[in-house]
């Protein structure tokens, strides 16, 4: 094990809380984060059947506001920000000039001139620099990660649990929408969104209330089966739900067409960074495409393992893991389009084995 001295790692406002609760802590992209509490299996199943509480304060927040805000957002992201209503959130990509991903992100529209972006922890500074570099519209751009704690309450019981702590009628918040209101007496941005494939909420609030909020929600949800969860379960949950993870399925070398994310790329919205390259690739066709697979052998595919055809490497696993709720071993991989049809047999190189797998539809799991 190569755990560096913890003093070098960044900590969320809940760091001491996690340690006191006995979480197993790991270096997660430079952050000292809980990977698991009771175990990834139990935490994953709790989120599918009841609810789980996650500290995701390492995620970055960037605020874009002022009269030029919409124009700047339209320029740097590939989805159509014009279509957003106030109180609505949108999954999108921050684009390079090559039409590849600087990052993937959630864009929250606070007002016509104010956008609140939730970005990946390890990309936060890069994202901020990229947006500033392309800011020709006079918008104000702020790197605001330090000002917020972000807690995710996820699972079928999450609305019932959260409702006990807020006067906001949660039934009125549709999926991928948000509002402002009190939770446990503290002002929060309450978003109905998540990264687990379940119904759930993401709460953004001032860090000084972190521990109080954590313990209040945990105690209040305990009768419903709510437990603390770590980033290990978050990863297996998002993989079952077929969601992309930056650095795995998408990065600054992959495009929306390759990653099956065409639905977040609106070519008809007008000019944006990377649009020309994306138009070219759309016309020429992709050379690789993201697929979901399940192992038909007992072995487990892992990130980075090769996809083989006749013993030759033709692709690569981007994420691979046991799927705790589905009780099978699954993964996503880039393969040539000719091998991407559902039902196609592929092989994965696992140590000295060529393990059999089959292409299956994404997502692996869809909530009932």
């Amino acid at each position, binding site marked *: 094990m190569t755990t560096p001295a913890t003093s070098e790692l960044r900590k969320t406002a809940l760091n001491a809380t996690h340690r006191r609760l006995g979480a197993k802590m790991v270096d997660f992209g430079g952050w000292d984060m809980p990977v698991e509490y009771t175990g990834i299996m139990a935490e994953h199943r709790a989120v599918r059947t009841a609810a789980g509480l996650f500290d995701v304060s390492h995620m970055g927040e960037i605020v874009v506001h002022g009269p030029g805000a919409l124009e700047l957002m339209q320029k740097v992201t590939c989805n159509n920000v014009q279509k957003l209503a106030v109180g609505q959130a949108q999954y999108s990509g921050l684009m390079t000039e090559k039409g590849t991903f600087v990052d993937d992100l959630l864009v929250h529209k606070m007002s016509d001139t104010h956008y609140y972006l939730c970005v990946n922890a390890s990309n936060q500074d890069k994202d901020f620099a990229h947006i500033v570099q392309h800011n020709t519209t006079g918008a104000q751009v702020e790197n605001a990660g330090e000002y917020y704690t972000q807690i995710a309450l996820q699972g079928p019981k999450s609305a019932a649990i959260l409702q006990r702590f807020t006067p906001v009628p949660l039934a009125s918040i549709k999926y991928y929408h948000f509002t402002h209101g009190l939770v446990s007496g503290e002002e929060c941005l309450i978003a109905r969104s998540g990264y687990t494939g379940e119904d759930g909420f993401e709460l953004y609030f001032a860090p000084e209330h972190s521990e109080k909020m954590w313990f209040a929600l945990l105690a209040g949800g305990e009768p419903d089966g709510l437990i603390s969860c770590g980033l*290990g379960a978050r990863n297996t949950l998002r993989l079952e739900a077929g969601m992309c993870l930056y650095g795995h399925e998408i990065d600054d070398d992959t495009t929306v067409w390759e990653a099956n994310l065409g639905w977040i790329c609106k070519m008809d919205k007008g000019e944006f960074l990377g649009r020309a390259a994306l138009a070219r690739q759309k016309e020429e066709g992709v050379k690789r495409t993201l697929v979901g697979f399940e192992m038909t052998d007992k*072995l487990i595919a892992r990130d980075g393992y090769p996809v083989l055809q006749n013993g030759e490497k033709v692709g690569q696993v981007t994420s691979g893991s046991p799927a705790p709720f589905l009780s099978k071993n699954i993964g996503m991989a880039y393969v040539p389009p000719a091998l991407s049809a559902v039902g196609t047999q592929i092989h994965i190189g696992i*140590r000295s084995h060529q393990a059999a797998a089959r292409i299956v539809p994404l997502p692996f799991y869809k909530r009932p």
Partner: protein
Amino acid sequence: MYPTDRRYTKEHEWIKLDGATGTVGITDYAQHELGDVVFVELPKIGAKIAAGQSFGTVESVKAVSEIYSPVTGEVAETNAVLGNEPEKINQDPHGAAWLIKIKLANPSEVNSLMDAAAYQAYIAEKQKETSA
């Protein structure tokens, strides 16, 4: 909590000697670091393995971990139970979830490994590093 009837390695394996045959498993510390174990791959009976050489793999939901042989010898038996119940490694790492039995080329080789007290001191040091 670490049994005194066996020896331990820095890679968190244990070996318990019975004549010239040693039973090998991973320690409670190792299973805890791994988390929920979901898959175990063990060598064939009769395979010759050298001290410090990887002879198998234990996988948790999150991680793949190679298992290194504490001694040199020949694999006499493997624990078939783990094929269907790998989670036993989390439940009873020092008992029912042994991995392999190995016929030692030189039984005195275990004397160079840590005893329970030395291993406990070794992991206490590790835990101090990660809980600053």
